[in-house]
């Protein structure tokens, strides 16, 4: 198969775009597309201060790489979760992020949850009822809180995450199956900031996961190959695999599902529920971050309970 632009040997064939590209042209195509989405969805401008949440995976490191190549000023944020899973998962992912930052002369902020909050995520999950023994719920809650805190305290204009099209479509699929109208109303390439909540953007939201993985490989980015050990068997991965079966029969199906959803949302399909979840925000009396809860936010309640149970068990 030949590159459509130069007729050299192609390294990737993107059936949904009817486009095959060689390595050099593919490495140009990804930043071109990313810039197009940044501009289309008005994510940020040339002088914005961007905080990129990095996990050591292909998407977040790929995004950090692309933003740098496009000339944006982007710092990285790595959150140390203390997950081992027999493979030293967190330690290895932190090493990948640090090595990338050092090799590219970029600034990386590291927040170690155990150091700051007093326990690793798996320990915290074992000491709280939240998530019913699985750490994913405590992990997600903690990451959202830390990302928002660092973005807000650091004066960043925007928090960028490496969510790709497959991530977005899997979430959309799950929320549609459950008719979770509130979540559907909030999903999109940009989540506007308000009342102490950082503005969040997803510059890779229209790139297939296959494309972001290929970018990392062709670009020679050293990323952590394995997913978090707690994500094995996750529903999101099942949805992705299922959607990929459908995509195999109908190339472009995932992209058209996502774009049709964005159009429907823009036309007001979820307008009635879009204001409901953020309308009654107030500041948490402990950390000051916005919450819909009447007292402490879920993060402070969860971690206060974890620390209290740690004291009892000592």
């Amino acid at each position: 198969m030949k590159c459509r632009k130069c007729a050299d040997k192609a390294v990737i064939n993107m059936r949904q775009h009817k486009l095959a590209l060689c390595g050099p042209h593919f490495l140009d195509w990804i930043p071109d597309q990313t810039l197009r989405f940044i501009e289309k969805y008005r994510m940020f401008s040339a002088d914005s201060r961007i905080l990129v949440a990095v996990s050591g995976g292909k998407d977040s490191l790929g995004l950090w790489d692309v933003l740098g190549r496009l000339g944006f000023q982007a710092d990285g944020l790595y959150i140390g979760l203390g997950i081992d899973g027999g493979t030293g998962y967190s330690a290895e992912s932190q090493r990948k992020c640090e090595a990338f930052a050092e090799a590219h002369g970029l600034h990386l902020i590291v927040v170690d949850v155990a150091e700051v909050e007093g326990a690793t995520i798996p320990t915290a999950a074992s000491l709280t009822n939240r998530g019913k023994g699985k750490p994913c719920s405590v992990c997600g809650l903690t990451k959202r809180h830390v990302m928002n805190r660092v973005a807000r305290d650091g004066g960043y204009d925007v928090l960028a995450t490496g969510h790709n099209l497959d991530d977005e479509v899997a979430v959309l699929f799950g929320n549609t199956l459950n008719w979770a109208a509130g979540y559907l109303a909030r999903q999109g390439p940009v989540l506007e900031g308000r009342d102490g909540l950082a503005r969040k953007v997803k510059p890779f939201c229209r790139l297939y996961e296959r494309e972001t993985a290929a970018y990392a490989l062709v670009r020679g980015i050293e990323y952590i190959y394995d997913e978090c050990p707690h994500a094995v068997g996750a529903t999101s991965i099942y949805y992705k695999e299922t959607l990929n079966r459908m995509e195999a029969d109908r190339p472009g199906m995932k992209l058209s599902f996502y774009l049709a959803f964005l159009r429907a949302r823009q036309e007001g399909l979820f307008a009635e529920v879009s204001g409901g979840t953020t309308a009654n925000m107030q500041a948490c009396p402990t950390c000051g971050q916005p919450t819909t809860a009447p007292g402490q936010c879920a993060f402070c309640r969860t971690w206060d309970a974890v620390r209290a149970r740690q004291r009892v068990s000592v």
Partner: protein
Amino acid sequence: MTVTLRLRDKDYEVRAGMTVRDALLQIGIEPDSVLPTRQGELITEDEILMEGEHIRLVSVISGGSLPLHHLALRIRR
């Protein structure tokens, strides 16, 4: 002679002379779910597999690429 395809720590053997796509379908892996590499270089699915070579498959989904029977869905050939 055969060709070895390696996905994570598992090896699959197929006949030489077929395309990467046909080989993946034969061993039950959805072609779009992996990126095939030959000597560290990405290759497209129409490449013909050569005798004795080793192809490394990189899973597109981190932690993913379940065997097809987990999903009980067919692949169109």
